[in-house]
């Protein structure tokens, strides 16, 4: 099982990194999601993999470490919310600029124009 979980984390991370290095916002955000899945599984595994044991100290000798579960919960909530935020900002930028590249525009585009919101 350790091999399965470890390789799953590896594949998710590799795919996520590949997508993050693209230039358009959609694949980059997809890559971010894959990376957060990978890190969630990784956090889970950081408390050692235990099957069929409760996350409390009871009569039994084996128990699952409950702390990584709490950490994962926090991480999931934050990454979920952040994905929503980045989608909204990226959508706003795309609709405004008609271009969804994530890198800086080329210098010749930066003609000395008045910044929109200057008073």
């Amino acid at each position, binding site marked *: 099982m350790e091999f399965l979980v470890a390789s799953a984390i590896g594949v998710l991370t590799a795919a996520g990194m590949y997508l993050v290095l693209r230039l358009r916002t959609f694949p980059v955000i997809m890559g971010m999601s894959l990376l957060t899945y990978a*890190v969630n599984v990784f956090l889970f595994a950081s408390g050692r993999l235990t099957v069929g044991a409760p996350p409390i100290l009871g009569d039994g000798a084996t128990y699952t470490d409950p702390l990584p579960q709490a950490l994962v919960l926090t991480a999931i909530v934050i*990454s979920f919310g952040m994905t929503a935020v980045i989608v909204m900002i990226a959508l706003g930028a795309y609709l405004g600029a008609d271009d969804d590249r994530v890198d800086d525009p080329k210098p010749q585009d930066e003609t000395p124009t008045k910044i929109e919101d200057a008073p």
Partner: protein
Amino acid sequence: MTHWMILPIVLPAFLAAFIVLAANYHIQIQRAISVAGGLGLVAVAAGLAWQASDGTVTLYQLGDWAAPFGIVLVADRLSTLMVLLTAVLGLVVMLYSIGSGWDNRARHFHALFQFQLMGLMGAFLTGDLFNLFVFFEVLLIASYGLMIHAGGTKRLRAGVQYVLFNLLGSTLFLFALGAIYAETGTLNMADLAQRVQLISPDATVGIRIAAVLLLMVFAIKAAVVPLHFWLPSSYAEAPAPVAALFAIMTKVGAYAIIRVYTLIFSPELEATAGLHGWWLMPAALVSLGIGMLGVLAAKRLDRMIAFSVIGSMGMVMVSIALFTTAGMTAALYYIVHSTLAAAALFLIADLVRTGRDSVELTPQAPMAGGALTAGFYFVAAIAMAGLPPLSGFVGKLLVLQASFDTGDVVWVWAVILSSSLVAMVGFARAGSVLFWKAHSVEASEETPSPAAPAVLSYVAVGTLIALLVAHTIFAGPITRYTSAISGQLFAPDRYLSTVLDTPGKMSKPSDKAK
């Protein structure tokens, strides 16, 4: 147990919620609440700093759970200094945003501002690594909102880059935390400091990877080259008061590096030896060089200031990377100086933008309110470039002195002195183009000249300048105090015993572990 300690976190949190719920449509009420909260925060922070100034380490156990089972807040000299700096900067920047009307260009500015302060305070006060991650997220989430405040396509594009880069940083942070937990079974900083020393020398692979990952995360926050790419665009495009507040955000990274790499992965620790000198020092020197070259190369005032922030962070990191008492003393003095100077420069860039068409470094007709703005720019640029008589020069001298009897002296002196020259040329050129060449350009008759900035804006910038001057005049007492701070950092026994031996629920973990 005193509850004053959690007030810097709770007060902004309550105010932010109150502003959203009760005063959402009344900008004047929002401003009044915000300023009152800012004043209160300065008072509380000053009280905490006074309490910690004699070396007391104050502990706050949330829910009365003893460390390492519960989350703790710890106020020692370093934390309270950063809290006080944040509170003062927050108040001044808030005054500027009110004076310039930035807060009224879109809604929720004050609520997000308070959440940002909450995240910053929490990051400085917490004694738990995962809690540090959570407060990083709080301050980042608020900063995403502030960064794209008032919208605009350019700002949104810069916002996308900023958010993506920081999301990647957060993911990396989680990987590092998972690795640390898997290796040691704890995330409390004081407990970690004791447990990493127990790891046997032939089983340090995991903890070494975690230490490097964590250093990378904090280096992203501190914008150390080669992890600085997010900074220039986002700081240049962010609204001016927000960019000024962001001046403290890079210092959060520096604070985290100081805290974690003196307390947990201290230079004496066998497993992570070499991380500080071999990796941090060259990166810091390159940051200093690249930042100051960027000052010379930038074509816009706001980008130029953003690069000077990278350069000054490089200076801070050079001093930290020495990992000596003298180096840390200089770094802490320089952190305060660089925060104030960078914030003042970002606000001055906004004064320039208010007075003329754009912040491009091209000659344009004289700006409205030009003389006073030029004077402020002159003083702030002297401070940032590190010329006598202001605090940048004192800080630089301290760094040079601290590095004098170390092995890196040649590199440090060469890079610092040559980058100072480059920065000086860059700032002088920008100033002469903006303020002197303006008089050779005829104002066109058709376009009406822009209105002069509000008085309150000048008051805010003037306060920052006055603080810089005070930082120079009282350099002696301040340096003695930062020296006391670094003394506390390199002798963490009192910190460890306060955190781990204070009784609470599930007390005496050290006995159980044995």
